[in-house]
């Protein structure tokens, strides 16, 4: 495995990082990332990241929840113990709706969070960038760009020059 994980460069302000990201994107890198203490509006476009896939998980979760609620109550009324209450039918989607509705929301919530964890590969308690001494400020007040060594365009000197040219400070090589 490659000993070098990649290069990390620091930026002091949000606009600096934003414009630097646009330049890294335009330079054609694909295996890179920006570390920011808060989500920056529009940075996804500046980095060329596609729309998140989380909603797909949510949709599957929601449909599952709704069908679970409806089919559970239908099974109770029709199969498990048919019982006439108040002269009403064994099953009707009307009275099953509130429960199915709540389960839709419950399952969507779990699927959304599960999907977010899965797509973000969390939990991941070790990551090379965490070893960098300046990482403590990544979730505080500073912004970073990390370009990974396994990017096809990665070249130790050329990439370092690019990061310096776009305004990156404290450029450090990260070890795996």
């Amino acid at each position: 495995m490659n000993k070098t994980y990649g290069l990390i460069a620091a930026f002091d302000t949000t606009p600096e990082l934003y414009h630097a990201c646009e330049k890294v994107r335009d330079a054609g890198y694909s295996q890179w990332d920006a570390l920011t203490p808060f989500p920056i509006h529009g940075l996804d476009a500046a980095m060329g990241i596609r729309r998140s896939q989380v909603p797909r998980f949510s949709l599957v979760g929601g449909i599952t929840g709704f069908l679970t609620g409806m089919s559970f109550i239908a099974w109770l009324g029709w199969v498990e113990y048919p019982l006439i209450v108040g002269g009403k039918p064994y099953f009707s989607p009307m009275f099953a709706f509130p429960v199915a509705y709540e389960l839709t929301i419950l399952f969507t919530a779990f699927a959304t969070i599960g999907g977010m964890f899965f797509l973000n590969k969390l939990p991941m308690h070790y990551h090379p960038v965490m070893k960098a001494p300046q990482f403590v400020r990544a979730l505080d007040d500073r912004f970073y760009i990390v370009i990974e060594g396994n990017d096809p365009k990665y070249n130790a000197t050329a990439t370092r020059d690019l990061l310096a040219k776009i305004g990156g400070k404290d450029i450090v090589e990260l070890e795996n």
Partner: protein
Amino acid sequence: MGAPASDSPAPAILAEVKPVVIPRRVLVEHHRDFHWITEKICGIVEGKTPVWWWWCFGLAAIIASFTVSGLVYLVATGVGVWGHANPVNWAWDIVNFVFWIGIGHAGTLISAILCLLRQKWRTSINRAAEAMTIFAVVCAAIFPVFHVGRIWFAVMPGWLFPFPNSNAIWQNFRSPLEWDVFAVSTYGTVSVLFWYVGLIPDLGTMRDRFTAAGNLFKARIYGFFAMGWRGSNRQWSNYEMAYLILAGISTPLVLSVHTIVSFDFAVSLIPGWHTTIFPPYFVAGAIFSGFGMVMTLMLPLRAIYRLEDLITQYHIDCMCKITLATGTMVGYAYSMEFFIAWYGANPYEGFAFINRAFGHYAWAYWIMIGCNVITPQFFWFKSVRENTTLVWILSIFVNVGMWFERFVIIVTSLARDFLPSSWGYYSPSVVEIFTFFGTFGVFSFLFLLFIRFVPIMPMSEVKAVIPAADPHGSSKH
């Protein structure tokens, strides 16, 4: 209307209309920067435990012991230790349940509905309000769980949760009480999940700070819950989407929870309960009471921790105005109930409302009107909203009034039902009073633990609303 002074006449249709830029009120005062926010919020958790905290914690624990003793006595003896007797078989237990669950609703409104409406002022009160939601749901859940007496029956013979009894008969899913079990348990679960997702980036910040300070024990604990968050934008992208979806599903959830709570009454045939206005009226009341509690909690917190730069006068104004709006809606609902009782020409319904206002529980009714309809009207005045002490006192009145609202609805209708021969007067037993009083201790106990160990404001969200967070420079917005 004067035309603009120029040589040529102004065109009938302007080529471009520039909307007037109304300056927005700043959300963080004194141009605080990112690092200041981190230091301020983390400093509360990292600093030494203040003396007042220990006193409050001790007091909260003592008060909470009232609930514990009341519940132990209840389980050991039976539900007869509560003051319920025919015809009032629903009383303080469900009053307290609805009261607490309603309080929780403001937390979800702030975290979910205001998120969808892009109300950026929500950021600094969001975390504490969501914590309030979770702890309020805990307090609320005590009552339905313990009103079954033998609490283990709540699960296994399925007096609450869907398991068949010994005759293999299942719950009646046509009953709003069974819907309520699903609504409240979903609400509690989703509130915890939503709160936790919001916490992840801040726990990452705490982890890194404890690591840098060399406190590896705390770094491990916070790090475990931070799940290895590193603030990468590829993570933020999914995170933001997940947060948006959670806000999107929490919005119908919070509306449905109090709607279903109101079905507990509205689906019955008791005069004074059997009204279609209940769902919206209950939701408005829930948000009203919840904002009362948010202000009751946040104003002292703001004063103690000197958070005036983060919870600004603008935040207090917004909260007061929501309280005013929802309080007025509740007042409208009260008058509309009376109108419909008259217009519906049902003698039982008419009697129920006359009895509420002028019967033997009239004292409770007028406390309710005073606290819920008159109190919020003071928030029309800027001078009142700027007087934090007064706002705090008024918020207490809101809390009291909303408890009385549930008491009035539930008890007056039952105490005077269809048959005069069965009329009665309900008074709570000592056990009931102590159990309810103790829930304030339970709530405070949990809330004090929260402010001691968890960052009380979402740092990542507060940072995102200051001008320095704008990638295009602050002048453009």
